[in-house]
């Protein structure tokens, strides 16, 4: 039981927290702008690498480098939107996907160009895990879970308590009705990009901290983020956060040796869990757990 908590449940929660951050932004973008943002993963990688650059060159801690990650992802998202997505928005919805697919490639090319293909790790001291009653957990994992929870709480406050947050939810419900209510949609779209970019920057730093940084790290979490967002009901940020945690747990627990000491799923196939969850959701409950847009 203790082994399950230490080697499956806690890592699952950490991974789930990271997925939740990424998927929430994806779901917000989908809700407000109604397109699947395929560059989201590479935006995550960009954030992680910029935090890495800040952390190594300035000698600051990884946590202190998070603002640098956001300082890279926010302008990247806003520029991509202004140059590429905005002109396509009114006319051709499906083409936005292709455009974001192209932006993904451009971001990845930039990361390769500046940081090279070799994986790197955040400078971090090697510390023994904390032990509570046999439950062993790395301090950084506690911070990742708490950090993600804090982000979720802040997002909740923004969405439920502020005028801008209400406008975002209103646009998600019905963009035309929001416009005739006087909502300046361009401003709401910018705000959505900023929030999603901050969330994904944090997710990138956390993922880099949990494992390592590599240029394809973002592409690797893209499928999981989409699966989480769709599982939670696309366009519903809360559902996406919940879906992210579920997916993280499912991925880690999928290798649990439940029967005869053999893992349920070979660890090398872990990343297939997202696909299975995606297909199962599309098959059984395409609107997601929390009734997203279909």
């Amino acid at each position: 039981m203790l082994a399950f908590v230490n080697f499956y449940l806690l890592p699952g929660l950490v991974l789930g927290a990271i997925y939740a951050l990424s998927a929430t932004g994806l779901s917000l973008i989908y809700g407000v702008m109604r397109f699947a943002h395929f560059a989201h993963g590479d935006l995550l990688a960009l954030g992680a690498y910029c935090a890495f650059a800040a952390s190594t060159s300035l000698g600051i801690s990884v946590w202190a480098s998070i603002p640098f990650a956001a300082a890279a992802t926010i302008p990247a998202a806003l520029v991509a939107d202004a140059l590429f997505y905005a002109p396509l928005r009114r006319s051709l919805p499906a083409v936005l996907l292709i455009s974001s697919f192209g932006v993904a490639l451009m971001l990845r090319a930039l990361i390769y160009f500046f940081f090279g293909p070799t994986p790197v790790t955040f400078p971090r001291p090697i510390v023994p895990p904390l032990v509570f009653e046999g439950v062993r957990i790395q301090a950084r994992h506690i911070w990742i879970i708490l950090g993600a929870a804090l982000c979720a709480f802040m997002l909740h406050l923004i969405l439920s308590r502020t005028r801008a947050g209400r406008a975002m939810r209103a646009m998600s419900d019905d963009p035309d009705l929001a416009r005739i209510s006087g909502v300046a949609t361009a401003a709401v779209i910018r705000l959505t990009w900023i929030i999603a970019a901050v969330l994904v920057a944090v997710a990138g730093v956390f993922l880099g901290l949990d494992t390592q940084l590599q240029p394809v790290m973002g592409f690797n979490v893209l499928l999981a983020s989409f699966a989480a967002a769709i599982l939670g009901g696309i366009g519903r940020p809360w559902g996406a956060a919940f879906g992210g945690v579920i997916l993280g747990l499912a991925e880690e627990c999928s290798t649990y040796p439940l029967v005869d000491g053999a893992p349920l799923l070979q660890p090398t196939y872990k990343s297939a869990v997202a696909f299975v969850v995606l297909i199962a959701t599309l098959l059984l409950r395409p609107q997601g757990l929390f009734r997203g847009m279909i």
Partner: protein
Amino acid sequence: MALLEVRGLTGGYGETDILNGVDLDADAGEVVVIVGANGAGKSTLMKAIAGLVRIRAGQVRLAGEEIANAPAESMVLRGLAYVPQERNVFPSLTVEENLAMGVYARPEKFREGKERALALFPDLAARLATPAGRLSGGQRQMVAIARALMLEPRLIMLDEPTAGLSPKFCSAIFARVQEIARAGIGVVMVEQNARPALAIADRGVVLAMGRNRAIAPGPALLADPNIGRLFLGG
């Protein structure tokens, strides 16, 4: 000069024009009812005035100010409120939040607007914390009209406010509509439910193929046998 003056309005989606030169006048305190067959362009006319459908030619003046093709988000501050058909509330927002969306451009007017809304629709008071998506059709319609009235518009456009409602709700809605007009607000209403709507109309407009077919006081249109046979189902 009428409060709303539409002259030769032409426009539609993409390449095709749905409206082919519509004229429409509405005065303050007047109920104008637009009737016509499906596809006559009634809803498109409202969307075009509200800035949601491109106007290719023609004028739209509100209190003398040209508003054709002005951004939809600017209409509320010009005094034009619009309640679309069916999808007219924010389903995931509570009733109170829906009302708040009505004063999005002037948040400081919330308290005052909410009091007026609840005076007009007292039933909503008990539902303020309910997501609008869980309300009945009639209650949604009330929320939608209340939202549109939050900023004290000069003119309100209602697209089929009684669609799908029980007769009891219909007459309640028509009573509110007359109340709104008595307060000096111009009301332009599209109605499938043509007979009871025309009965309260100061002005009735029959639309066909994106053109005006007849304009007359509502009761006069009802009395006209040709109009009755052609557009009101006999």
